[in-house]
């Protein structure tokens, strides 16, 4: 178990957002957290991350390296992209040379090369989101919490998110993400729904059937080949927004 929640509740004044939330996250879990606006999804992510104390209940076994992307990356800061990332890497405990290499790798990954000298407050929403993703990955996280990670991202950058999720889960970590735009290529292993302050474990449409045949629970599978990763991400986003479960994989010959 990576982390456990026991009877967690969140209350703002007299307004109870979450109540009696109990669940666990295991290695390799990729959880899609859904629910209407204001249901408490972001609060739950903050509680799991450890940046917000629950009003009731407790969280056990939080791993050492936790990364969190808020739904809106805080842009109003007096730093350039590179200065900010280097400072965050230093706070993560990286020495200057390792910090520089790590920052360079993340800058390249999220196509931030032209913006390293740009001030954070001058970034667009999508570019700021990329910086947020980059800071979350300066040290490989054991638990990654993404609040609307695709918000504002361009088609090319969207493809990086499923890769990041797969990396963290593949290393034995866990990922929880919210997304109002469809899964955009991420195949969750679990689904949580937050309604009326309750957290429910929902069936996962893409899960293999109990008879072991490997076919998804119900429905049919359509495979579509597209020319490149950007087109795949865009199509996945569109299909996800229509409510379909979408998985993106490398189409090179095996």
């Amino acid at each position, binding site marked *: 178990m990576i982390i456990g929640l026991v009877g967690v509740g969140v209350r703002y004044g007299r307004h109870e957002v979450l109540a009696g939330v109990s669940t666990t996250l295991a290695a390799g879990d990729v959880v899609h957290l859904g629910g209407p606006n204001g249901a408490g999804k972001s609060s739950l992510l903050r509680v799991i*991350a450890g940046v917000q104390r629950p009003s009731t209940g407790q969280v056990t076994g939080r791993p050492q390296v936790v990364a969190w992307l*808020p739904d809106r990356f805080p842009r109003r*800061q007096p730093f350039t992209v590179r200065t900010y990332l280097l400072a965050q890497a230093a*706070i993560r405990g990286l020495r200057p040379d390792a*910090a520089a290499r790590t920052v360079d790798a993340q800058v390249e990954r999220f196509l931030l090369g032209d913006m390293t000298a740009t001030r954070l407050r001058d970034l667009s929403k999508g570019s700021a989101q990329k910086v947020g993703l980059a800071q979350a990955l300066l040290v490989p996280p054991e638990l990654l919490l993404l609040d609307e990670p695709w918000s504002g991202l361009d088609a090319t950058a969207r493809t990086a998110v499923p890769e990041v999720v797969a990396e963290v889960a593949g290393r034995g970590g866990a990922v929880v993400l919210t997304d109002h735009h469809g899964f955009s290529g991420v195949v969750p292993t679990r689904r949580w729904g937050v309604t009326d302050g309750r957290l429910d474990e929902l069936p996962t449409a893409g899960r293999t059937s109990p008879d072991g045949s490997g076919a998804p629970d119900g429905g049919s599978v359509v495979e579509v080949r597209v020319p490149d990763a950007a087109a795949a991400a865009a199509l996945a986003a569109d299909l996800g927004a229509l409510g379909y479960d979408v998985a993106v994989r490398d189409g090179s010959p095996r």
Partner: protein
Amino acid sequence: MTADGTAAPSASGTARRVAAAARYRLAATLRDRSFVAPVVTFALVEVLLFGAPGGYPADNVAAALAVGLPVATWAARVVLDVEPDDQRRLTELAAGGRSRAHLAALVAAAVVCLGLLAAGVLWGVLRNAPPPSPRPGRPLPPPQPGLPVVLLVAVVLVVAFGLAAVAVAAVASRQVAGDGPGPVVVLVGVPVLAALVGQSTSPVVSGLLPRVLPAVVAAQDRRLVATAPGLALHAAGWTALVLAAQWWWRRRR
């Protein structure tokens, strides 16, 4: 290095991470416009106080502390709350815990407070005028302590009152005290206000204050050196009490 280009965290972490978080906060403060106001205010007050040479060194130390404490508290509050809320949370995660982030914030605030107070006190000491000649028929003024003694006392008092300023700012800040002012803010704010507007006659309230005005009175009576250890001890105890109270309040919420 790991396979994906990220570097694994090094082992000897805590002190370096706290130092890095404190540096980050100081850098953010120096680049933030909200820091200009307390610094300019401090400079103006210092110019008004010590623009012309005058006074004994011990007097000037006490005066610099008296006017410097509220401005230093203001500056410390700016340092503590310089980050947007979500960035504060991100820094807590990066530092590996809320306690480390808080410690880094307090260290950064202390650096600023001590720097401001030390600058003010030093200016006051260096701008002092030679003692006036005794007038015929008037009693001789009590002997003044030497400059090294005054400087030593000034260092002790700057540290004590600088930390007290950090404690007051911490109680009032979102970073340390949480998302909204609590009763601790009120409990501390009232006596601080009383300290700013004048000496309280209530021994209870007086006991809750860093004794800035008693320091001024002691300086005027030529007793600052003798009373400095007690004043510093009181300020240190008061600081510990306030920080413990805010810690308790935060844990309770």
